[in-house]
């Protein structure tokens, strides 16, 4: 057996942070549409018996359709204006080749070394004395801004650090972090701006009450026209906005912190990790002045650790589980509330209707939601399996991964129930406060069925993903298998969650579904193995141990696409 050096490739599959970025942006789009224009605008305008019933529904639908398309447009517009705004606000200047010839030459050399061809505009921040840089921009153009300190002191005193910092920034650009991060910023900024609406509603209501007290009947009638209960609704809207803004803020910062590791990993890919480690070592032990919740960067010590051994990037992140669970409840809630409940007169919450009556719709919406979320979950687990198989030399997966799956499932269940709690609290507050206590208990007990359904899906995923990644020699095969088993896991989850747990109240059915899906997956895997071809010479490969496979024709060793592997000794 030759001595093989294996390093896991952190840029495989779909990035879970990408999915979380999209979730964040979606939330920022859906939330204002949901709250402001239903509880705020429509109650006041259309609930008062001005219009006929049918006209009211049509108007509601029209408003939703218009606003649902306006919000993404506004967010995109703000995002496209962001570079201009940053340049103006921070008084950034364009890096002049005549004034900084040596610095520009050095940058050109780095661009050649790293083969980065993206359109980049180089700026500098003359008044920032730190040895730093940052990247911003849009999909079309990226900007890298060097601090005054980096451009002068660091370039003169420590050219290697200057280069390392620039390579790290290029890593962000190549990893596609810029558009996602700034779209997320734009989305949260728009949401922050919109908070003014519920505040204005509450203020207007307050003014009417005061005027009513002073001027008597006329105003009192006006107050009753906008319904006193609306005030509670506006307060809830405000509460909702604040909670979601906090979630978005924390989620955004956490995702961006993770992306820092990936920017460093890109520098590793380019072969300059040693220089980056030296640069980061300069800053170790320094007390960070940034508050952990607000800061975008992990400590230099952690970044050095990840550069030396990147297996940390392949570990489970429970925030992924929590986020997935949270949005698994939230998106269907938003969609149902928008489509059915508020457009079609409380259809879904009507006592004569329920899950059974709209089962088809629930199934489709939940399936779409979970498949989207499962991509992030599957990506996390594929990476853990890579670590188990190629670094820790397990045949399939380790016991630790099974334990992780249990914790992950419970956290997912917790995420679902936290979302239920959040949406439920608002509803209960507006309807019946006494129901809160009994609901709370039920909410926490409900973690178990969600966690069980998730664990069954994860276990299925772990078995068949571990079998498929070993023989996915090309990116095409790897991605095809990734999506195949991700979709199967999602469907299995929906079967367990909706049919077994919520329709028939029998979770044992989940085991039957698991066995049925496993049978399908076994057939797929067997068929896949029968049709294995060498990615180098396209020779058909016979059944061999996938971990010790070499092509019988070209004799080249075959490695999973998802790892970097190099032979220290020739075969």
């Amino acid at each position, binding site marked *: 057996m030759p001595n093989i050096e294996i390093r896991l490739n952190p840029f495989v599959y779909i990035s879970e942070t990408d999915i979380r970025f999209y979730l964040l942006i979606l939330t920022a789009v859906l939330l204002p549409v949901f709250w402001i224009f239903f509880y705020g605008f429509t109650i006041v305008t259309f609930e008062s018996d001005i219009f006929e019933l049918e006209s009211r529904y049509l108007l509601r639908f029209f408003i939703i359709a218009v606003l649902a398309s306006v919000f993404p447009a506004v967010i995109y517009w703000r995002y496209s204006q962001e570079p201009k705004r940053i340049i103006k606000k921070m*008084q950034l*200047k364009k890096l002049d080749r005549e*004034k*900084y010839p040596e610095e520009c030459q050095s940058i050109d050399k780095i661009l050649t070394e790293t083969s980065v061809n993206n359109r980049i505009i180089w700026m500098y921040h*003359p*008044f*920032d*004395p*730190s*040895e*730093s*840089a*940052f*990247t*911003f921009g849009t999909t079309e153009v990226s900007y890298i801004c060097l601090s*005054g*300190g980096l*451009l*002068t*002191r660091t370039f*003169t*005193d420590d050219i290697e650090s200057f280069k390392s*910092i620039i390579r*790290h*920034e290029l890593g*962000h650009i190549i990893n596609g*972090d*810029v558009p996602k*991060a700034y779209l997320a*910023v734009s989305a949260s900024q728009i949401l922050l701006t919109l908070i003014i609406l519920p505040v204005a509603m509450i203020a207007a209501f307050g003014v009417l009450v005061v005027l009513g007290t002073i001027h008597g009947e006329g105003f009192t009638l006006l107050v009753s026209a906008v319904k006193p209960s609306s005030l509670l609704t506006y307060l809830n809207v405000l509460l909702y906005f604040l909670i979601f803004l906090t979630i978005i803020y924390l989620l955004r910062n956490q995702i*961006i912190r993770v*992306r*820092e590791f990936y*920017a460093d990993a890109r520098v590793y890919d380019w072969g300059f990790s040693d220089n980056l480690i030296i640069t980061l070592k300069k*800053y170790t032990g*320094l*007390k*960070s*002045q*940034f508050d952990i919740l*607000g*800061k*975008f*960067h992990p400590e230099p010590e952690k970044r050095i650790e990840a550069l030396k051994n990147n297996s940390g990037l392949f570990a489970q992140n429970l925030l992924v589980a929590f986020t997935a669970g949270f949005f698994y409840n939230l998106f269907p809630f938003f969609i149902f509330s928008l489509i059915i409940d508020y457009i079609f007169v409380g259809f879904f919450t009507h006592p004569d209707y329920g899950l059974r009556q709209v089962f088809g719709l629930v199934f489709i919406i939940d399936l779409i939601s979970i498949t989207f979320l499962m991509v992030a979950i599957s990506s996390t687990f594929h990476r853990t399996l890579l670590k188990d198989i190629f670094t820790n030399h397990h045949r399939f997966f380790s016991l630790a991964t099974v334990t992780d799956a249990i914790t992950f499932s419970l956290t997912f269940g917790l995420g679902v129930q936290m979302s239920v709690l959040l949406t439920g609290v608002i509803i209960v507050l507006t309807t019946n406060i006494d129901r809160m206590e009994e609901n709370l208990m039920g909410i926490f007990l409900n973690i178990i069925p969600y966690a069980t359904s998730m664990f069954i899906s994860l276990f299925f995923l772990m078995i068949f993903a571990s079998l498929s990644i070993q023989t996915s020699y090309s990116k095409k095969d790897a991605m095809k298998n990734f999506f195949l088993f991700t979709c199967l896991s999602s469907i299995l989850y929906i079967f367990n969650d909706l049919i077994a747990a919520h329709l028939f109240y029998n979770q044992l059915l989940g085991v039957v579904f698991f066995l049925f899906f496993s049978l399908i997956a076994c057939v797929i895997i067997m068929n896949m193995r029968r049709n294995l071809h060498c990615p180098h010479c396209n020779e058909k490969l016979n059944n061999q141990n996938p971990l010790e496979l070499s092509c019988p024709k070209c004799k080249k060793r075959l490695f999973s696409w998802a790892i970097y592997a190099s032979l220290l000794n020739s075969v």
Partner: protein
Amino acid sequence: MEDFKTELASDLSREIARDIAPNELKLFDDFKEKFVKNPEAFVTGKGQKTKDPMLGFAVPGADPFIIPTILSVVWIAIDFIIKTGGEAAIKKLGEKLAENTADKIIKTDQSQGKRPLTNEQIKELKQYAISQAKIEKINEKKFSLIFDAVIGKINQM
């Protein structure tokens, strides 16, 4: 007079920066641009706070630039000299500086045997400058170093 004062402060600061902060010199024009717009409002340290930028490299903490402190101290010194009746001396200092800058050599002018600032005035100026430095939150150690350099340069001319 105001324009002359601003221009003098900038030129004198550049000379001092050349000696004590040569690696920041490329940024001098950027600071000067900001300083010239409104010298009174040019507060040292403003805009120098280190942030943790999104998608950046994030290095916590950094020594502030010296140039803004030089500009501030020079401005305070010139202001003091003018207020204490040294307008003529300041004009002469400006002419000298223009000559020296043109020659690229700083020469000591011993011919008249009179320096723009007497020892007594330097003491007074230091008191005044310290009080201003406190208001403008200039680092004390850096302030002393720069103050000595400024006085040295003024008297050298």
